[in-house]
């Protein structure tokens, strides 16, 4: 009896002694903060933070691999105490939320019949899943089982639905999903995500240069959720009122309904919800991430500059816009005439962006009112150039300096700025692009008797938007095709009296695939005009270079644009970024908006000290192979909603907006024409 008691105690004592000595000998320095932090964590070892237990999480927090609020269970007090221990600010991290990417679910087609275990990971190991779509939801609900907070359920259509109230952003569902249906992201991460090859993207969304999730916002309109539709558009495009009016909607060319029927009028739906917000009298709140304290100088307040500033502000940085003209908006204000985009509408939209806390300085031109060195001295961490393409090309013919000769953008900017311009009675506008058409239609509204549009190729080759060409035909503009201006004829008072041109004929196709016009010998013809506007293209005005500062190191292309890495918008000077017309040459508003967001993503990386790298798998407006169909089954012809417009007789005498917004009933009808496509599956009509 005594021996056994002695032995038991002895064994315990020996083991205890050995262990205590061992803990001295084999002592490994551990940050004392780990123990303190661990005490502040929930102690549930739930794994919600993504680490193996609370001690691992505490270690990660102390090693700054995880934020102070990594633990999803503890309250605000503990998080702030941890933050104090770590010497950081509490609550600087944005909340994570789970988002469902696939809304195909049961409508997706299967490759084989599967009767195995009801588990997504099991079916995935069988040839990557039973769906034809390689990325689509398999619907067995591994995410539902993984969620410890009962925030996910499989909806009636066979894909997961997330209850945002319950979701804590632990990431368990993303880990459990063998595809990437559920992604746990902060709002900032979502705002700066570029479309990728493995995303669930409809053909229209792949095509949109601003990468708007088109089927999603049309879906919101269908359910009458106009505010959600606006918010969905705003995740990608802050200028929805402007785009809803002026965008030539390249998306509609790839609309799947358009293969069998007329395409869905996507842009009119965008305009409908955008106008809905404006006319509702209140602005929808736009959430911004916590402040980072980083400052960015945005040179040029056009669509690219506004877009970049907007996205940088939303992810928590502080952009400041420097604009040479009296007001922000760039080409939206000075290049697009009032009748297409009323200034009142543009002002409302720009105010909404500036209200997020973006400072703007107008009437300041880089190189004249301030120089580049002063920006850096003022403590800006990065500079974004979006100076646009404001330099009109000249024809290079004699007589171009006579009175009555104008250039396209210069003319439109003067009109847009309400400057007095002496306008003739018979005008020739040279060029076939949108600027030329805008000049023609503006002139008509200024009371000009006759407007000629002189273009050296034919209507088929005109780069202007088809709708614009049709509208100007309706308004009575006379097209002079296959005509190359030869010289401008003037009188003794240096006033333009006519334009001599050579007739052309189409020859062999050139590098751009368009047939090259060749002049016909001895075909000189004189057009009797007293004003000439040259609108044959623009290039960026880079007069601020050559002053002996860092800007001289910038690489410039032979088109006088900034040489930028296309996937990141970074120039060869690491802290200088560029997008919009000044980086791409003249392009669409929506291209500039997409470019601004792409640049914002890179600037964000740069400001956070990460390497500026292109997003892996980024789509960059190419199409995902296999998602563009030749034919679409199950489409019943439904007439596309016509765009309401002012009657020609009424509109050509005023600068009132020509295109009108569609009615709510039409918007609902039009949204129901949408097939809600994804990569492969869609909702057929029948």
């Amino acid at each position: 009896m005594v021996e056994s008691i002695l032995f038991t105690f002895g064994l315990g004592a020996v083991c205890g002694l050995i262990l205590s000595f061992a803990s001295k000998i084999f002592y490994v320095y551990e940050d004392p903060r780990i123990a303190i932090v661990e005490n502040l964590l929930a102690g549930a070892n739930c794994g919600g933070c993504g680490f193996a237990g609370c001690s691992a999480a505490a270690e990660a927090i102390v090693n700054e691999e995880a934020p102070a609020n990594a633990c999803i269970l503890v309250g605000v007090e503990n998080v702030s105490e941890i933050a104090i221990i770590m010497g950081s600010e509490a609550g600087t991290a944005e909340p994570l939320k789970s988002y469902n990417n696939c809304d195909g679910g049961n409508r997706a087609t299967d490759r084989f019949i599967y009767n195995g275990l009801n588990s997504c990971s099991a079916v995935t190991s069988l040839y990557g899943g039973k769906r034809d779509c390689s990325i689509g939801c398999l619907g067995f609900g591994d995410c539902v089982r993984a969620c410890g907070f009962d925030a996910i359920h499989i909806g009636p259509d066979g894909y997961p639905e997330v209850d945002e109230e319950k979701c804590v952003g632990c990431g368990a569902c993303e880990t459990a999903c063998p595809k990437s249906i559920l992604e746990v992201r902060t709002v900032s991460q979502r705002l700066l995500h570029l479309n990728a090859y493995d995303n669930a993207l409809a053909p229209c969304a792949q095509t949109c240069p601003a990468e708007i999730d088109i089927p999603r916002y049309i879906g919101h309109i269908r359910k009458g959720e106009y505010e959600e539709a606006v918010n969905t558009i705003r995740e990608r495009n802050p200028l929805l009122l402007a785009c809803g009016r002026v965008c030539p909607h390249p998306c509609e060319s790839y609309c799947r309904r358009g293969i069998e029927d007329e395409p869905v009028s996507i842009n009119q739906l965008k305009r409908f919800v955008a106008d809905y917000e404006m006319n509702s009298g209140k602005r929808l709140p736009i959430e911004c991430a916590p402040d980072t304290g980083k400052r960015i100088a945005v040179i040029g307040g056009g669509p690219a500059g506004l877009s970049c500033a907007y996205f940088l502000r939303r992810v928590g940085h502080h952009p400041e816009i420097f604009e040479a003209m009296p007001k922000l908006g760039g080409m939206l204000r000075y290049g697009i005439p009032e009748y297409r985009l009323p200034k009142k509408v543009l002002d409302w939209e720009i105010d909404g962006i500036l209200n997020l806390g973006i400072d703007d300085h107008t009437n300041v031109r880089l190189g004249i009112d301030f120089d580049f060195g002063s920006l850096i001295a003022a403590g800006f961490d990065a500079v974004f150039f979006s100076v646009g393409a404001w330099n009109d090309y000249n024809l290079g013919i004699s007589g171009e300096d006579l009175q009555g000769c104008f250039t396209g953008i210069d003319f439109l900017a003067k009109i847009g700025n309400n400057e007095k311009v002496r306008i003739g009675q018979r005008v020739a506008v040279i060029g076939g692009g949108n600027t030329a058409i805008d000049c023609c239609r503006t002139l008509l509204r200024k009371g000009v008797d006759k407007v000629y549009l002189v273009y050296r190729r034919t209507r088929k080759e005109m780069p202007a938007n088809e709708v614009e060409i049709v509208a100007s035909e309706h308004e009575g503009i006379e097209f002079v095709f296959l005509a190359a201006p030869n010289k401008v004829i003037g009188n003794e008072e240096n006033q333009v009296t006519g334009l001599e041109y050579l007739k052309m004929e189409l020859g062999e196709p050139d590098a751009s695939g368009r047939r090259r016009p060749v002049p016909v010998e001895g075909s000189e013809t004189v057009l009797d005009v007293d004003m000439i506007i040259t609108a044959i293209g623009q290039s960026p005005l880079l007069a601020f270079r050559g002053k002996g500062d860092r800007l001289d190191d910038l690489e410039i292309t032979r088109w006088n644009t900034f040489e930028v890495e296309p996937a990141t918008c970074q120039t060869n000077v690491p802290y200088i970024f560029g997008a919009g017309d000044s980086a791409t040459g003249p392009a669409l508003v929506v291209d500039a908006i997409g470019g601004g967001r792409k640049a914002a993503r890179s600037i964000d990386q740069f400001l956070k000290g990460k390497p500026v790298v292109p997003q892996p798998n980024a789509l960059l407006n190419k199409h995902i192979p296999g998602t563009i169909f030749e034919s679409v089954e199950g489409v019943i012809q439904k007439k596309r909603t016509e765009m309401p417009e002012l009657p020609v007789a009424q509109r050509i005498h005023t600068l009132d907006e020509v295109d009108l917004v569609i009615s709510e009933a039409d918007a609902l009808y039009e949204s129901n024409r949408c097939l809600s496509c994804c990569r492969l599956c869609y909702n057929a009509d029948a």
Partner: protein
Amino acid sequence: MGYFELIIACIFVNNILLAQFLGNCPFLGTSKKMETAVGMSMAVVFVTVMAGTLTWVIYTYILVNFDLVYLRTIAFIVVIASLVQFVEMFLKKSIPALYAGLGIFLPLITTNCAVMGVCVLNIDKEFTFLQALVASLFYAVGFGLALILFAGLRERTLLARVPKPLQDTSIALVTAGMISLAFFAFQGMV
């Protein structure tokens, strides 16, 4: 009994999992994924060899000498638990790579009945020290073999058409029974 027969007996004939039914909880718990099964097997090999030899020494030189054989179970539990703690500290300091590799499985098997069972079997079969060492090592190897075989099978049953009431753990137990029956074919070899 020669060492070759001992090795065969430990791995196959008297396989600790499939013939003696010890250590069933890690057998079912860590066999869902091959990766965890391998980690667990390594940790078991490591701990069983250490525990098997140390408990043999304590039994032979202390318990028998002081006539305290009836305290065997309690003594072994204390010894194994302390040993695992000690080894954990030692590895953390000296071989951090191995420590990180074994990870959570090391403390997990503190009270694994397979480890305890090997220690007890070593005594019951009246092994010499060297035999105890070899037996501990190869019982553990047998444990690893069975666990890895079973993990491979379970990864496959995920894809099989299993009737709903039998899914997951139930089919795993049925499978375990069948492998066990298969292992009974080794009976009588040694």
